[in-house]
């Protein structure tokens, strides 16, 4: 054997070891993190139960159903979507907190913590995002994946140069074809992302969901932030809810769903179904363009000197100081918004109430932190 063949074999062995280590790390992102079934969970189904074409695909995802004892076919219901964009961690954690703590006494709560299940299986390239973040609970650590904004290209490829939204013909950048919140109301024979949108729309139609809440986060430099975005049909409910939140000292804006921005939950679900759709945004530095070091600490605390500087220069749409925007605050805003939406609905529709207990208030979450509201993994 020639000398350079021996060195080639050595380099090949090193390459195989490197590919093995990297491959194991990437494959570990496909393992779902633990979600405990809380005391209010009456049933766990899959999205494919409403749209069977999703069965066995990376788009299929758990739907947690929390039904009150008094609930019947006419009862009010709420669907909460977490994880539409898995690089917006407070949305996912808020949905998990609902599953593990909410106890409905009237109506039914549906929660999909991983709305875009495929997008949890990878990171956005060139962002340097952490793969995971950890929240300490009294009984152990809870580890959550920090995923991508879009469906994994391994599951849906290739992207077109231009993404044409199926039902409106709207043109967007090609990579938006994998963005769940640009694909509604979905397409039964479309891409994986469009099929997931279709499945969620089918669930809303078949279960006659009263209110749909899509949880998100946004860069601090993004204008729609610390806000609730509502379809015109949901505007009366959302405006009363915003006033209720302001009365709890939770600063929040109200934005109408733009008529000409298509494919989003707050537009299409209101146009194509009878649900009242709203979307909520909280400030998340770890997805922003102005951020500095991107690590787990930034995900959890939101503390970033560059955003403090940007705030001083008047470049942000949210207040930003050295305290950042910790995940307790961001999750607290989402949970308080959901509770207030249910309260406002019940106030206006006492014959069809939607009530659940067991959730921490915004002030409680800030005071106690998230850990005590999350169940430790079963050993």
């Amino acid at each position: 054997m020639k000398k350079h063949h021996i060195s080639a074999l050595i380099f090949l062995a090193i390459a195989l070891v490197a590919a093995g280590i990297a491959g194991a790390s990437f494959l570990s992102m496909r393992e779902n993190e633990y979600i405990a079934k809380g005391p209010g969970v009456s049933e766990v189904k899959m999205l494919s139960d409403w749209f069977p074409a999703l069965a066995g695909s990376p788009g299929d995802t758990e739907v947690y159903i929390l039904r009150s004892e008094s609930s019947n076919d006419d009862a009010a219901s709420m669907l909460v979507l977490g994880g539409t964009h898995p690089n917006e961690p407070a949305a996912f954690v808020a949905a998990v907190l609902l599953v593990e703590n909410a106890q409905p006494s009237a109506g039914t709560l549906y929660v999909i913590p991983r709305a875009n299940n495929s997008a949890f299986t990878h990171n956005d390239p060139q962002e340097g995002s952490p793969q995971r973040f950890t929240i300490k609970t009294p009984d152990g650590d809870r580890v959550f994946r920090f995923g991508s904004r879009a469906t994994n290209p391994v599951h849906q490829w290739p992207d077109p140069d231009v993404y044409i939204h199926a039902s409106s013909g709207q043109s967007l950048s090609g990579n938006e074809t994998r963005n769940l919140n640009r694909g509604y109301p979905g397409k039964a024979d479309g891409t994986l992302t469009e099929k997931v949108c279709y499945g969620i729309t089918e669930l809303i139609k078949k279960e006659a969901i009263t209110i749909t809440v899509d949880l998100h986060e946004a860069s601090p430099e993004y204008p729609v932030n610390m806000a609730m975005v509502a379809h015109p049909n949901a505007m009366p409910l959302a405006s009363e809810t915003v006033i209720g939140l302001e009365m709890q000292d939770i600063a929040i804006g109200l934005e109408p769903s733009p008529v000409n921005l298509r494919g989003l939950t707050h537009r299409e679900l209101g146009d194509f179904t009878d649900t009242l759709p709203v979307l909520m945004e909280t400030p998340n530095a770890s997805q922003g363009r102005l951020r500095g070091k991107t690590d787990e600490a930034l995900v959890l605390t939101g503390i970033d000197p560059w955003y403090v500087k940007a705030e001083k220069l008047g470049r942000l749409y949210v207040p930003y100081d050295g305290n950042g925007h910790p995940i307790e605050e961001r999750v607290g805003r989402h949970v308080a918004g959901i509770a207030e939406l249910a309260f406002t609905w019940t106030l206006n529709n006492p014959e069809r109430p939607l009530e659940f207990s067991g959730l921490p208030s915004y002030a409680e979450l800030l005071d106690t932190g998230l850990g005590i509201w999350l169940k430790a993994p079963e050993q």
Partner: protein
Amino acid sequence: MKIIYLTILAAVLGLCLWNLFSAKKPSLQATAAMVIVPLLLRLFLIN
């Protein structure tokens, strides 16, 4: 579409392996080995 993609990928991987074993300079062999890593991850649809 996926079959065409994987076929092209396998061909490029084969060329890289050929380059790895035919190159005599260690620096060129190291370069070929580094290129092989992402190609393997793609071929097995890992990333």
